[in-house]
């Protein structure tokens, strides 16, 4: 080992990703095993995307799991793993109580009743708010890190993981990687590995979201695990020039999305019932159709908000406050007094590892928590991420630890490990194309609204041709000047793989459902497409896609209402 790696670290459970789900997995794993190691590409204990969040937490506490699940089946247009979601909903309250035990405070009214705000016009899916408002992410991160410290969880930051290691039986027993600031090489061995790297995505400019580039799914895929939900992504409406958090809260007090003609297009053209008070994916689809009709730019008009409400809604904490104040000071731009130009922006990719109900992938010993596991069809509710990081992180960590106890030894082939490391380091110091260009290319492939929002065979095939060109141009000529660049290159490779699977899966799903809209197949097709698409790496290295039917015969709820029916986009009128 000495000659191949600078360091060899052993653990009972190796957790890749130190965000909220990774921290929860570690806290849970420590119930069963001693030696739990978290590695993360960011700074140690930064807490991943969760730290940037407001601290909204979906929790079933004043309704029933059945009712909430019924809402989810409706919201996901039937494409939903009811058994998995039922567990999440059932355990959401325990994790909420756990957060409280760790010192996180949630908002309650004078009588002590939790403040719970329904999301996306769903009656039973409600989020709790961390108090004081806006401090949630950092306070939750601090609580989780304190607990991880108390339990002696080891953490290593700035670590780029390149490949998973499998043993003779094809079971996950570790990983190889390098320290992204120094290039020091590492072999990790562990009889159970948890992926907790968050979702994939194409580096939108949005706080920490740009760090979520899907390496976990990519590593699992390369190791032989299947990915699902690749045809879906989460698209948010954002200002063109700057970042803004919390537009959802402004809509009920009068703010409006309008087109170039000043029309509230969601209400007027696409959804008389919900208007813009829905998931951002649908609003963004509306924006895309407005662009198609030549009625852009799209503006977010805050002028109808009363002065009193503006005072209440002005950001008062953290980055949001600096952002707001500086827009006024440097650019003379008062968010609450102007119509700002907005646009859709891809926030994250729904694609992730497919697992069984124990969150174990097809590679034994490899587990996937939260957004690193494919779960939803491109629709989101406020508070869902913090709920699922906690619940699925906790379940996954416990399962991985028990698996580690059973397996005991983690033995990998050292030659193959050294070869994996050498492959990963090969671009270092070589002449060729930089990570920056690869990242930019993947963005240019998926960002156009005709690829991500209004899909058609024509637009997707064009995108696929571009993916193929990028693979040909970049893969033989990857280069990195420093270990820092090499880590960014790993992100770029993951983004390119996700772009390919997004396009291929989107081409295959010849229907429209939830976050997936096919202009040439604008109707829902339950006969053929109450099914997930899984993608595996074939023996030739190319993606192999196949359908996995939703096992409705096992499920209690047979889909009978569909959230997508609240909308009428061009081409879909005839179906309703």
């Amino acid at each position, binding site marked *: 080992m000495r000659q191949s790696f600078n360091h060899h670290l052993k653990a009972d459970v190796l957790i890749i990703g130190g965000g909220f789900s990774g921290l929860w997995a570690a806290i849970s794993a420590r119930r069963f095993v001693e030696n739990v190691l978290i590695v993360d590409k960011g700074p140690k204990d930064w807490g991943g995307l969760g730290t940037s969040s407001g601290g909204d937490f979906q929790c079933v506490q004043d309704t029933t799991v059945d009712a909430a699940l019924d809402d989810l089946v409706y919201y996901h247009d039937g494409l939903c793993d009811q058994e998995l979601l039922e567990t999440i909903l059932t355990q959401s309250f325990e994790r909420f109580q756990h957060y409280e035990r760790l010192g996180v405070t949630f908002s309650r009214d004078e009588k002590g009743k939790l403040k719970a705000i329904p999301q996306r016009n769903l009656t039973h899916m409600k989020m709790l708010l961390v108090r004081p408002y806006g401090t949630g992410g950092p306070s939750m991160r601090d609580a989780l890190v304190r607990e991880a410290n108390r339990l002696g969880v080891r953490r290593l930051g700035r670590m780029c993981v390149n490949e998973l290691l499998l043993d003779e039986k094809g079971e996950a027993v570790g990983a190889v990687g390098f320290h992204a600031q120094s290039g020091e090489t590492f072999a990790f061995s562990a009889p159970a590995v948890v992926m907790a790297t968050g979702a994939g995505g194409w580096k939108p*400019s949005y706080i920490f979201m740009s760090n979520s580039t899907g390496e976990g799914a990519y590593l699992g895929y390369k190791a032989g695990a299947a990915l699902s939900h690749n045809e879906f992504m989460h698209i948010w409406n954002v200002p063109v020039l700057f970042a803004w958090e919390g537009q959802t809260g402004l809509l009920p007090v009068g703010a409006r999305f309008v087109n170039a003609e000043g029309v509230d297009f969601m209400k007027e053209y696409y959804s008389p019932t919900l208007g813009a008070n829905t998931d951002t994916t649908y609003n963004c689809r509306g924006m895309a159709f407005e662009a198609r009709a030549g009625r852009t730019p799209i503006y977010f008009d805050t002028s109808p908000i009363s002065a009193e409400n503006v005072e209440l809604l002005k950001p008062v904490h953290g980055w949001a406050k600096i952002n707001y104040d500086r827009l006024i000071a440097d650019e003379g731009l008062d968010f609450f007094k102007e119509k700002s130009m907005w646009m859709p922006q891809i926030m994250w990719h729904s694609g992730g590892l497919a697992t069984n109900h124990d969150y174990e992938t097809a590679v034994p010993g490899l587990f996937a928590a939260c957004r690193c596991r494919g779960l939803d069809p491109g629709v989101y509710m406020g508070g869902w991420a913090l709920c699922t990081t906690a619940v699925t992180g906790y379940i996954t960590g416990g399962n991985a630890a028990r698996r580690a106890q059973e397996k005991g030894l983690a033995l990998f082939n050292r030659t193959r490990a050294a070869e994996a490391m050498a492959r990963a380091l090969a671009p270092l110091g070589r002449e060729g194309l930089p990570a920056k260009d690869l990242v930019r290319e993947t963005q240019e492939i998926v960002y156009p609204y005709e690829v991500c929002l209004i899909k058609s065979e024509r637009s997707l095939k064009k995108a696929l041709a571009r993916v193929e060109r990028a693979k040909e141009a970049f893969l033989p000529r990857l280069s990195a000047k420093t270990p820092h660049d090499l880590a960014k290159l790993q992100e770029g490779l993951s983004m390119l793989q996700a772009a390919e699977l997004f396009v291929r899966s989107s081409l295959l799903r010849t229907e429209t459902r939830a976050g997936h809209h096919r202009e040439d197949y604008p109707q829902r097709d339950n006969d053929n497409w109450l099914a997930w698409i899984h993608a595996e790496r074939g023996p030739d290295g190319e993606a192999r896609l196949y359908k996995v039917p939703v096992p409705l015969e096992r499920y209690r709820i047979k889909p009978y209402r569909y959230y997508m029916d609240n909308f009428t986009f061009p081409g879909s009128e005839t179906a309703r």
Partner: protein
Amino acid sequence: MLRTIDQEKCNGCGSCFKACGFDVFRLATDQHEAPPCQAACPLGIDIRAYSHLLQQGRTREAAQVLLAENPFPALTSRLCPGFCQKKCARGAVDTSVNISGLEHYLGELVLASDPRPTPVTRFGAVAVIGSGPAALACACFLNRKGHAVTVFEAGAKPGGELCTPKLAAALPAQIAYLEKLGITFACGVAVGDGLAIGIEDLREQHFKAFVLATGAEKDKTLRAEPPFSSAVDISDDMLVVVNPQTLETRTRWVFAAGTLRGCPASVAHQIADGRRAADSVARYLNGWDMIESRPVLGPVVVDVPGKGIEPAPRLERAGEAPFAFEDMILEANRCLTCGAKAYAAFKDDCMTCYFCEMACPQGAIAVHPFKENLPRTISYAVEGVK
């Protein structure tokens, strides 16, 4: 995007470097003003520089910075009382950085490496008499300059006063390391007037310069007269008389270092003395001026970081074992790299998250709210507000 880092306000604490999720920042540690730790160190080690390298896990480069001033970190990290730590600015926040622990990590790294012999590029040899800290340091620095060096030790094993239980394992490893560098050890050979061999005898064997470093008892009354009076003057305290700046004795080719010439007894002071003697020997052999361009440390940083820094517990080594890599990085990141200056090393990777600005206790960083100009979902010919 990140717009400005006010270099006047920046005091080097590294909060931006430590907080950035995109790894945009690095610190420029090569500054005119020295950090308090370096100023306090008898060896003047650039702790700020190697600590920032360690913060990044760049252990080999960090070792090179440390070795430049101190060839024996494995020994000093076990013996030095830590002059640096007593002046560490972190002490005002919680507790000083465990500099000794970081040094220990690097010391073990150095000893575990397999050094190649230093090429001998100069004609003629130098004799170092004695093998304590000053002697070994002198031998090591002369070896780096390309001189053939022989260390003469009267005892059976090299090390002199370093032969203590604390260094039972480290000292033999360090000696083996020096032998690999090409330093010759002649043990059981007493050098001096009336002993096995005299200085003049060695001169005839082509030794061109001599450094006397056989040490002295701390208690004056126990000192015997050093056996070198044929070449040097001996004081009433039984010490070799030298020019304190150049360590020259009465005889031009004979120098003295360490406690034998009255240097303070700490291992760091003695290594510094050996280094000074090596510098003088080189000047003598080259016929240079003995005084010109001796290294001088710049003024000490006055405005040290500390205000607004969150406390973080100091990590201690577990017994004799050096830090694990992750603990080493953690402890190095407690260092406030006093007086360094932050810069955007990878500015392309900034994603306007404001975390650096929020982390900066000096208010030195300004992020502009406008985002990166990425590809758009919908292209607007003109982007802005109305």
